[in-house]
């Protein structure tokens, strides 16, 4: 049964069958919402799907310097790790095998940015290198508060199981911790005001400047899965699942994910890109302070003080 459950989680929900259309819907929602907020009509919600089909059907131009297997395997690795995250999210509560292991989920969540940094350097483009450097700096800057917040929740719940954390964390810890994680989402999704790595029109396309055709399509796919995986991770942590029926849990997971998409899009539309120094300072002071509050609350809660 465990194998069957794991296969369903990987291939159906919240895996491939759910994540692919949902990823396109999320990217489409992001573009549509941003267009509406700018007073435009914007592309249809199905736009990311057509973009992907078009990219997969293009034939890459010849290149003088390239490491084709590496450049192809990096986006595949990024997409595969996000599918791994999704397969391990305990949407319906319960613990099976290593499904829902916090450390594994966090580790896999960090794979796509790492792949992107490697891709930026491997493509041997000056724009790619600048983008990759920025991505690496932001990754470190955002992971300090992100990991502190997650550790706070794990401390308060006294567990490294995502399902247990979602069920047992007291709200006094959960609110500041989740707020920190949500503030780190625009960094991890490379959205304004933290769109430094892929800074369009400034760095051409950042780490992806030299990627074309099917490989770029794979990156788009990995990016859409990143949206589903990251919002899904927050949704699972925000929703104490075991106390409800399976259908309620599923609907709550999807609803919270979509609300998060709209929230980060509104932030992205309302802000302009900031400098890398400002971004690291913002993450290093205010967002880390918020994570610190969560940590203190977690330690107090554990001692029975709250």
């Amino acid at each position, binding site marked *: 049964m465990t194998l069957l459950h794991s296969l369903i989680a990987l291939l159906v929900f919240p895996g491939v069958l759910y994540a692919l259309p949902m990823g396109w819907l999320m990217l489409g929602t992001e573009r549509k919402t941003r267009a509406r907020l700018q007073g435009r*009509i914007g592309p249809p919600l199905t736009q990311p799907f057509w973009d992907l089909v078009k990219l997969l059907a293009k034939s890459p131009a010849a290149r003088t310097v390239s490491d084709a297997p590496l450049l192809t395997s990096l986006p595949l690795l990024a997409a595969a790790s996000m599918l791994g995250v999704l397969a391990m999210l305990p949407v319906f509560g319960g613990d099976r095998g290593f499904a829902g292991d916090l450390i594994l989920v966090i580790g896999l969540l960090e794979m796509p940015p790492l792949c992107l940094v490697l891709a930026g350097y491997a493509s041997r483009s000056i724009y790619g290198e600048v983008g990759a450097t920025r991505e690496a700096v932001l990754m470190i800057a955002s992971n300090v508060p992100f990991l502190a917040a997650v550790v706070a929740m794990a401390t308060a719940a006294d567990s490294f199981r995502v399902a247990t954390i979602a069920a047992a964390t007291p709200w006094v810890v959960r609110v500041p911790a989740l707020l920190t994680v949500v503030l780190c989402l625009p960094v991890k999704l490379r959205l304004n005001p933290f769109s430094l790595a892929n800074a369009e029109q400034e760095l051409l396309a950042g780490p992806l400047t030299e990627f074309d055709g099917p490989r770029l399509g794979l990156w788009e796919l990995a990016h859409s899965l990143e949206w589903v995986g990251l919002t899904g991770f927050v949704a699972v942590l925000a929703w104490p699942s075991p106390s409800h029926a399976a259908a309620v849990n599923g609907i709550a997971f999807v609803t919270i994910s979509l609300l998060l998409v709209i929230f980060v899009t509104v932030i992205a539309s309302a802000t302009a890109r900031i400098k890398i120094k400002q971004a690291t300072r913002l993450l290093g002071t205010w967002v880390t302070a918020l994570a610190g509050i969560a940590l203190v609350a977690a330690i107090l809660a554990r001692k029975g003080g709250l």
Partner: protein
Amino acid sequence: MSQVERGIMLRLVERARRRSAWLFHLNAGSCNGCDIELVACLTPRYDVEQVGIKLEGSPRHADVLCVTGPITRTTREALETIYAQVPDPKVVVAIGSCGATCNVFAGSPVIEGPLDHIVPVDVYVPGCPPRPHSIIDGIARAIGLLAERREAGAEVNR
């Protein structure tokens, strides 16, 4: 793949190409007039993103190469490099009169244009500068040509 499946795939790809054309804008010695008009197409008034058109920063991401200007001596090499970097199938749109005829710069020793002496041009959008309407019309015609190039790389390059 059977003939029917192949037909379905080709129709899907053709439809995707009609719905998602990404532009790369190259200024080859333009006076900036056409560039402003091209960027105006992305604003709320014209909003070409409704039909999936967007401006990309890298030529490797593009389907449509939009060239403005009469091609000065210093931009010729960049133009050739960038044309080679756009993956097939691709179309080239010459925006403004400069790309078509070199306009008032014709005869200058530093001008290497018009554009079709250097790369094959699919659509000309005349005007100095052309209005956003005519630029959108030209790009729409270019997208039609792009979708009809069924086999990637099958077109004959002049």
